[in-house]
Every structure is written in C-alpha cells, then in structure tokens.
C-alpha cells in the first residue's frame, strides 16, 4: 500500500461509535492532492520540454509566444518571428502530442487492465498495434515512403486497420459474451495475423520502404501537427466524462468479477463493450499519429496504482497524468542525448521507464500482484 493511500484513512473507529462515519472528503484527500500535484508537474515539464531543442528558447520566449498568439500580434523582428514559429509550430504541438498521447495510452491501458482483470495487458493486447502497423505499411507501399505526402495517408491507413481489428475482436468475442480470456486470445490471434501480413509487405519491400515502415513502428512525436493535438484533445475531452461516470461499474468488474458485478447491478457486457470501444479508439488515434509507443500503456497504470490505489475513480485521472509525464520526459531526453539528433520517444520511453518500473515492482511487490 502506498503511503498516500494510508494517509487518507484515519485510524479505525472505536467499537462504540459505529455510525460516526468520517466525512467522504476526508477519505480521498491523498488521491486528490496527488492529482493536483500531478497536473502541476505536467505543466512544469511541458514548459521545460518546450524550451529544449537546437535553436534554444527561454521561458520568456515561450511566454512571449503565448502572449503574441493570444493578443494576435505578429512580431516585426525576424529572429523573434522565427523563434515564435519554432515554439508554436514545432515545439508546442510536439509537447502537447506527447502529453495527450501519453495520457490516452495510459487511460486505455488502465481500462484494458481493469476490464480484462489482468495486470499484464496493455492497450495493444487486442492486436491494435500490429493492425495499425499493417495499415501504415500498406499506406507507405501504396503512397510511397516520402514523409510529406505520406503523412495523412499513413494516419488514415493506421486508423482504418486499427478499427477493423477492434471491430473483428469485439464481434468475434461477443459470441462468448466478451469474456476476458476470449478477448485476449482473439487479440493474440489477430496480432499474429496482422504481424504476418506486415512481414509479407516488409519481405517484398524495397529498402527505402522497409526503412520507412521500421521507422514508423518506433513511435515518435517528430511529425506532430496541430490537427493531431486538437483531434486527440477532443477525443479525450469526450471520453473522460463517460469513463468517470462508469468508474464504479469499472471497479465492480475489475475487483468483483463478471458474475458478482452483475449481481451488484452492473450491465457487464454493455459496459465492457462501450469501454473497450473507447479504449481502442484512444489507442488507435494515438498510434495513428505517433506510431507504436510501447511501455507507457502497460506501465503508467501500475505506477499510478502504486500512488493513488486501484480505485478507478482516481486511478484513471492519475494514470493519464503519469502517462503524460512519461512521454514528455522521454521526448525531452530523446532530444537532448544526441542533440541535434532525436531519438524516438518510443525507444526512450522504455529505456527510462523500465528501470523505474523494475524498482517499483521489486520494492513494492504487494501492490503489483
């Protein structure tokens, strides 16, 4: 148990005072504080992240840019204009895509782990990543490997096959009432299928095409654009209230099991179908923009659980914060280590995250089990 969670409960009540229940606001102070601090940490790392890069920028530059955009003024001086453009067109969408993508993958991971009652699953368990990779590969083969013209076709290809995959998994598993094991097994089968299809493309592809496919699968925020930031933001803004509304149903499914959840008044199949559809959409849209960023969707929920506990009412928000932090930091590190070169965030994410995760597992085994 985390210290935060323990602090949120006062000592047991004496036997003579059974009805003297503590006010609800006292029970979750730790969780609420953690979320508050988390949001502050995301803002701070984002501001730091925006400053990192080859053409340098200070906090003052960043704030000036924001101010100029708010007031609609265009700087007359050429260097300032260039600086503003770097910050507004390159750095800001990149950092925001890392934040929103990390949050989306972490939320999806939390939902999948809870719904399938399995701490080992990630947003990719249902086979979305290989399907998206196949879609992207197909787009690269058909439309060519040149980045500029291919960007939108890549996004559409990846998105299309992610949705085909999700629709297949859900319809195949629905004959078995969407049982957790069936979903996982169908996901494994489709992962293999799309993996083999991608391998076929790679086997026959030209070197240049092959390189483009491999680069896509590394996962990065290098090709971020404002439309991606806005799309992901809109999606999260729509999904989050629904997920929060379902948090007690999620708790019942995750911690009591299907049968007991039904006996607690939860429409298990409906909730599972809707929530998986949401988690899959969050995952699909994110990786269509970024390529396959592994690790964060598996690990952010675990780290979050260690801090705020497993109650989905707080876990989902805090997972989103941890996911955002992991990707923003990983992207910043990736831009620093071999500057001016950039290591894709998907690689750094696992390099930085794996040791942290190992430390947490080994030092606090009970909470992971």
């Amino acid at each position, binding site marked *: *148990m985390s210290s935060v*969670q*323990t602090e949120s*409960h006062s000592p*047991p*009540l004496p*036997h003579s005072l*059974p*009805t003297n*229940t*503590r*006010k*609800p606001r006292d*029970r979750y102070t730790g969780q609420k504080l953690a979320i508050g601090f988390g949001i502050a940490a995301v803002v701070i790392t984002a501001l730091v992240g925006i400053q990192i890069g080859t053409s340098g920028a200070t906090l003052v530059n960043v704030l000036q840019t924001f101010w100029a955009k708010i007031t609609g003024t265009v700087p007359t001086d050429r260097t300032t204009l260039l600086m503003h453009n770097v910050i507004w067109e390159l750095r800001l969408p990149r950092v925001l895509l890392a934040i929103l993508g990390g949050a989306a993958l972490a939320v999806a991971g939390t939902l999948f782990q809870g719904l399938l*009652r399995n*701490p080992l699953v990630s947003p990719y368990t249902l086979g979305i990543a290989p399907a998206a990779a196949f879609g992207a590969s197909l787009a690269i083969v058909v439309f060519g490997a040149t980045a500029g013209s291919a960007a939108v076709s890549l996004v559409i290809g990846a998105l299309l096959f992610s949705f085909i995959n999700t629709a297949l998994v859900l319809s195949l598993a629905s004959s078995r009432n969407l049982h957790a094991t069936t979903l996982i097994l169908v996901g494994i089968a489709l992962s293999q299928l799309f993996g083999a299809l991608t391998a076929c493309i790679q086997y026959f592809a030209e070197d240049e095409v092959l390189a483009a496919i491999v680069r896509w699968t590394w996962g990065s925020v290098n090709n971020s654009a404002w439309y991606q930031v806005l799309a992901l933001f809109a999606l999260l803004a729509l999904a989050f209230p629904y997920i*929060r*509304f379902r*948090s*007690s*149903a999620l*708790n*019942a499914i*995750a*911690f*009591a*099991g299907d*049968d*007991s*959840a*039904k*006996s*607690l*008044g*939860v*429409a298990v199949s409906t909730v599972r179908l809707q929530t998986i559809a949401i988690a899959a959409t969050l995952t699909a849209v994110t990786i269509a923009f970024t390529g396959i960023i592994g690790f964060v969707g598996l690990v952010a929920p675990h780290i979050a*659980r260690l801090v705020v*506990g*497993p*109650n989905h*009412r707080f876990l989902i928000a805090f997972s989103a914060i941890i996911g955002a932090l992991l990707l923003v930091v990983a992207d910043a590190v990736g831009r620093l280590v071999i500057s001016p070169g950039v290591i894709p965030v998907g690689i750094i994410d696992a390099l930085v995250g794996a040791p942290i995760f190992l430390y947490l597992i080994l030092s606090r085994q*009970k*909470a992971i*089990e």
Partner: protein
Amino acid sequence: MTLQISSLEVGYGKRQVVKGANLTIGKGELVGLLGSNGSGKSTLIKTIAGINTPTSGSITWNGDADLAKLARRDLARIVAYVPQSIGLSFGLDIREAVLLGRTPYFGTRPRDEDWAHVDAAMQRMGLEDLGDRAVTELSGGQGQRVLIARALAQDPQILLLDEPTSALDIRYQWQTLAVARDVTRKNNVAAVIAIHDLNQAARFTDRVVFLQDGVVIAEGRPADVYSPELIKRVYGVEVELSLHKGFVQVHPLSERDQSALGLHSTPPEPTHDPRTVEQRGYATA
C-alpha cells in the same frame, strides 16, 4: 414475506440445467441447496441473483413483480450474492472492497449514507480494524468475510451464498456458516446457500433442498429428509446416518464396511450423469 420460485427453467444454449424448480423460502430462513456437481445448484442461485436469465417460470418476492424482469440495479438492491472466495488482484483495500456492495446505490461518488452502511457491515463481520489492509493480504477466511460484508453493505432482503466454504479450511468453514446463519436471523433475510457438506448443512440450515439434474427431488428439515436411499440416489454412495447432539450426521461406508454389514456391494454407477465432466464443470463454473 417469501421468495417464491415457480416452475423455473434455466439453460445454457440447448441444454436445460434447471428443470421446473419450485421453491419457497421465508424471511429469516436459511435454506441449504444440496446436490452433486452439475445438479444445477449454482445455476439456480445465479438465476435468482440475475446473473443467468431464466427461460421460463417466475421468481417473485412478496408476491410482487417477477425479480427476473426487474432492472439490474433495482434487483441488486434486493438480492445480494456471495461467490466462492476468488483471487483478488490489484490490492484494493478492504473498506473499498466492501464499498463495492454499494454500487447499486450511488453514482460516481459514494454518499455519507453509503459509508455508514460500509462501516456497519465491516463492524458486523469483525473487519473494522482491517479496513486499510489490501485484500491481497488476507487469509481465505478473512477474504470470505469481506465478500459477506460486501453483500451486507448491499442491504439485501435476499442473500445467496454459492458454495462459500469450498475454498476454506474447517475453521473458516464453520465460522462462515455460523456467520451466514447469524446474518439470516438478525438481518431477517431469506437466505439460500449452495453447499457440498451434508453434515454442515444439517448443522446450520433450517431446511435443505436436494437437486438432481435440475429437478427438486426432496426438501424439508435435514433430520426429516436425509435417508440412506436419498443420498445413494443423489450422490451414488452408501451411507449410514446417526444423530449427534440432535443433528443428523452422514457417514459414508467403504467397500469393507459394506461387506462386513452384509450389504450388497454395488459400485457407484459410472454413467450416473450422461454429460461429460467438462459440461458439468461449466454448469457450476
């Protein structure tokens, strides 16, 4: 105030598991559901709990509307279900695990009233000092107490227990059964417990119901219905009965006992149940 089950039929696909069951259970009464594996005990309990849907027949409470036709959430405010102790993951703390019982009552945020029920249920089950412990740290008996506390927090009028003792050692088996009987009396609920141990059923329940292949074949006070013939018919074993402190007790006989007593030694019929082991396993799963 009774739970009335009339001509209830339940099946998985084409296979009928419960076939025309009729049962009446009164308030404050603990009824034991007995029968071999695959006889339909679990299915019957899960159908009352709204986990399975009946194909025909009715389940009524106080002569009101059919429970099977109620909205899930409304049903969950009347009926609580205690499963076998299950593997719990993700380290939920006990207070939160009991709070799950309030799921049918609150939306996103538990109210003061919900916490009051949680604290009362925890105190009732002697868990008040363990509230901050993770469920993963608990022993089997404590885990089962958490599940019963969760059901009590649901504030039910009907309490269903599906083989709650099968994963426990004898100490916790007795503790759990004593608690189940106690709760039935003090909370004045109609309670049904699926149970394997005939002696424990005789000791703790008011009435027993024998199910065979989804049909009720006998019911009444244990001392009245237990007979070597019935038990041979249901379980395929030769037994002797005795009375111990006023409770009827069942003693299976070995082959040697049987020849020593001059009984005709018949091995249990191997094709007693025509279904495969897998099918029967599914019916109780």
